[in-house]
């Protein structure tokens, strides 16, 4: 993570190294946590089994064993695949995750880039992964992959819109598109003159929060929106032909994106890295003590775990929608509701 305090003291290469390491930690740590905690353990407990128990205490080293297994596997191409596109597709998907994490603030000075139009940028780069998925589906030269890729493209484009509209409410209320600004606006704010909890937007923008989480679920192609993957009918869709390291990249991309989207949701709706400023008598960003640069990432990580728990909980409990049903749900339910939400937010903003 790049601390602005440090930037004056460090050489450019050292700053770059810190940024790269910070980026890797910010992407891989949530992915590993989600996979072990939820995919391995929570899912097992929900299904009355134990999950991995052998590798390490309570199977905690299982993930490393899995990664080792994937690294050893042969790199297989289908005979008629478009090799170049086939190779770069997983990288595009993972790149979209790294591009997303760039605008997430982790503390008062701990950010990768303090971008004025952060929310706008986030919404734009989150749809880059569609390209990767579509390329993967097309280049595999497999009918199931093609169907999966096309379904994914249709679905991700349809759910991009409710996501954008859900965030608009937050942007109106905060009055800024800067992610750091949204965090400050929530924690320095007050509810009816009482500032003990700040003003987390999950309370005022609850509708927006729910729509955002549903759209995230669909963007991540998790059940009940996993039609593009659909293990029992399309045999994993666009991922069918991938094995070894390339599959691992898809896998990391899926769960890292779940983590990053959870972080973004906690920044937008749950107050992000900060505690309510009134607790320590802060009034703005410059007052904040330096220790928040260490505590902030931990607070954000905790909120991330809670939100990904919800995502995974839904994933393990529901059957999946059909393609036309989920399109209808996006266009006929989510988008009208979020439009009404925006209108009400704007009216209240002007009125108060």
């Amino acid at each position, binding site marked *: 993570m790049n601390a602005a305090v440090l930037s004056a003291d460090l050489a450019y290469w050292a700053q770059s190294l810190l940024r790269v390491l910070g980026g890797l930690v910010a992407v891989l740590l949530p992915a590993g946590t989600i996979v072990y905690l939820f995919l391995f353990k929570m*899912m097992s407990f*929900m*299904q*009355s*089994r134990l999950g991995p128990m052998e590798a390490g205490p309570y199977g905690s080293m299982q993930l490393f064993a899995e990664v080792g297994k994937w690294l050893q596997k042969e790199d297989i191409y289908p005979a008629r695949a478009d090799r170049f596109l086939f190779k770069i597709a997983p990288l595009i998907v993972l790149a979209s995750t790294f591009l997303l994490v760039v605008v997430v603030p982790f503390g008062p000075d701990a950010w990768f880039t303090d971008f004025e139009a952060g929310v706008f940028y986030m919404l734009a780069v989150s749809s880059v992964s569609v390209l990767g998925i579509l390329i993967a589906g097309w280049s595999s030269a497999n*009918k*199931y992959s093609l*169907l999966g890729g096309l379904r994914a493209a249709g679905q991700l484009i349809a759910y991009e819109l409710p996501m954008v509209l859900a965030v608009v409410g937050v942007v109106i209320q905060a009055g800024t598109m800067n992610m750091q600004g949204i965090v400050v606006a929530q924690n320095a704010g007050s509810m009816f003159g009482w500032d003990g909890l700040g003003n987390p937007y999950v309370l005022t923008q609850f509708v927006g929060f729910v729509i955002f989480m549903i759209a995230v679920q669909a963007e991540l192609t998790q*059940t*009940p929106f*996993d*039609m593009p993957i*659909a*293990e*029992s*009918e*399309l*045999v994993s869709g666009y991922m069918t032909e991938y094995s070894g390291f390339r599959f691992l990249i898809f896998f990391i991309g899926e769960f890292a994106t779940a983590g990053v989207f959870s972080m973004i949701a906690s920044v937008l709706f749950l107050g992000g890295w900060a505690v309510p400023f009134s607790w320590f008598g802060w009034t703005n960003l410059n007052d904040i003590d330096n220790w928040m640069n260490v505590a902030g990432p931990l607070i954000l990580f905790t909120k991330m775990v809670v939100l990904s728990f919800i995502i995974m909980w839904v994933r*393990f*409990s*529901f*059957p*999946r*929608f*059909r*393609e*036309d*049903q989920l399109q209808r749900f996006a266009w006929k339910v989510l988008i009208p509701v979020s439009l009404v939400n925006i209108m009400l937010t704007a009216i209240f903003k002007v009125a108060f």
Partner: protein
Amino acid sequence: MSLLGDRQQLAYIASQAADARVNVELETEGMTLNIGPQHPATHGTLRIIARLDGEQVIWAEPSAGYMHRGYEKLTEVRTYPQVTALVNRIDWLGSFANEVPFILAAEKLMGVEAPSRAQHIRTILFELSRIANVSLFLGDLGVQLGAVTPVFFAFRDREYVLNLIEAATGGRFHPNFDRIGGLKEDLPAGFIDETRNVMKKLRTFCDQIEDLLFGNEIFQSRTRGIGVIPKDVALQYGMSGANLRASGVDWDLRRDQSLPMAWNKVDWKVITHPDGDSFARCWVRLQEVRESTRIVDQLLDTIPAGPVMAKVPKIIKVPEGEAWVSTENPLGEMGYYVVSQGDMGPFRVKIRSASFNNISIVPWLLKGVYVPDIITILASLYFILGDIDR
């Protein structure tokens, strides 16, 4: 002599060709999708050839035979007691139920009837194998529709039933326990109490599945109105079992025949549903598990004392003749047409298995549905590959 010059003619031809190309491009090309032989939705190696227009099926046909094991032919070189070891591999999830109609047919030819205690135990084991079979269907239904959790509940609770079958017969999957004239052994000690406990657990399992799946709105929207089979079509295609009852036909061989079994001695009802869609088929099966637990509970109360084996010769020779016996198996009507020429083994056996007839409706049913609905329909028709290919 043409009025047009050469260059004009060439230009005309070129424009015609361009039009033709545009027309060809606008016509979407059909795609043939092979679902299977290796596919998670086919429970084995069934292949469904589907011609798609976009995601819509315009033509589909099941192609069976990838797992043909030739049981009808094999029975001709086995003795009668050896045949049960073959036939309980037909529907491998409810294997005891496969043995019963064959043994009944052989008994019919020999003029032997099993003692009353053996009939009761046969019926109990028959219903237990139905519960083991259909409870796995209920879990698998979730997996086919994308919910991963129910299948683990199904495996957990099916295990109790398999333990019971193992306790009584010695085999979890392939009991090979039925004999001409009765059963191999009596029930083990403690079987009756344990069975009562397990039936209670199975009823809880049914409630759980009903909450988890059948009450779920996504599940209902995926299954209601999908793959509707009207009554007359179901009869035309020779469907049987729960698939037929879900189309509103009140037909159950357990009630409608008088076989030397104990079904008509207890109180239970035949479940039907008027809709004939995928939801109806799943719902009927769920209710039938409940009815089966009721049948088992009542049979446990009324089980008579006595021997479990009638007097039959050590070396079984079946007199000349032909016999047809069919029963209501977990998947539908299963019957054996046994031709004997007085030898130690049958001369010819024709096996009528339920799934083969049940999937014959697939080409009719899949016309015009979407790819995700293929999976729903196949899951709700519920076939087992061994039962199709034999």
